């Protein structure tokens, strides 16, 4: 049993990590978190420590609203079949998650005000749209299934 499959085995004690960073408005309990998710959460915390002017062009630090939204996206995207995300700071105070599988890419960006936009790329085709916060739990798994291959992703959610 691999570490990632172990988290779906109910005989294995739950992995829980509490986000206690005071910059967040609450505790984020994570049950059955994959190793990749825990790593991603630590990465978000790391980027939250960037100071003003981190990009050398006068950007403010990463806004808490953006980080909270990125956490929401990461939780919605969590699956055994999800590729490891690349998490990038964005000038202006936002943050972006990037996934790539074959000729498909998904970029989900949390803007400084907490709004979300995504870009899905498949070969030469692109789809770019805002994503309302209330729709994240609905649309992110759909986008991930498109990215990873529907059958493999759906199997991971069963």
């Amino acid at each position, binding site marked *: 049993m691999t570490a990632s499959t172990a988290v779906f085995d109910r005989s294995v004690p739950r992995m829980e990590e509490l986000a206690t960073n005071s910059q967040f408005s609450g505790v984020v309990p994570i049950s059955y978190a994959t190793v990749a998710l825990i790593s991603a959460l630590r990465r978000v915390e790391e980027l939250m420590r960037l100071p003003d002017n981190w990009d050398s062009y006068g950007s403010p630090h990463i806004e808490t609203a953006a980080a909270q939204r990125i956490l929401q996206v990461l939780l919605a995207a969590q699956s055994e079949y999800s590729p490891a995300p690349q998490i990038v700071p*964005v000038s202006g105070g936002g943050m972006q998650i990037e996934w790539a599988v074959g000729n498909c890419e998904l970029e989900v*960006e949390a803007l400084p005000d907490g709004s979300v936009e*995504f870009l899905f790329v498949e070969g030469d085709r692109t789809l*770019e749209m805002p994503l309302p916060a209330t729709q994240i739990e609905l649309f992110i798994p759909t986008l991930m299934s498109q990215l990873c291959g529907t059958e493999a992703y759906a199997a991971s959610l069963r």
Partner: protein
Amino acid sequence: MPPRSDDRVSIRDEEDLWRRVFPDRGCFVPTGSGTWRPSSAIFLDRRTREVSVHISSLTTVEAVLASFPDHSLVAIKAAVPRALGYAVTPDPIHDDPVLPDDASHALICPPPSAGINKIKAHAREMALKATWVVLRDPPY
């Protein structure tokens, strides 16, 4: 803020525009062939929507990286953002409270008509067409 005007006289299409790349592993995207490209996030700025660059003919690599020895540096031709409808305009910095004086500073500005539904695709296109001037080895 009124839209910035494109300045094709001061900045020719063939001009290389340089942008520093923050030394963070997320900013470097592996291409699968052992090389790296800059993340599309390098060509986004959500504060003003205008992306700072340096007009290469007015400066040097050493000057642009003087205070940022760990940063990498990418270049795109001015024609690239212009082909996407962006304006490229000089924006020399003098007496800024945060940024050092820089006569080579310029801005890549989205057209006012550009909706939010193309900004990310455009940033990705610029990143795909960027070339490394200085790539710290290994980046991360």
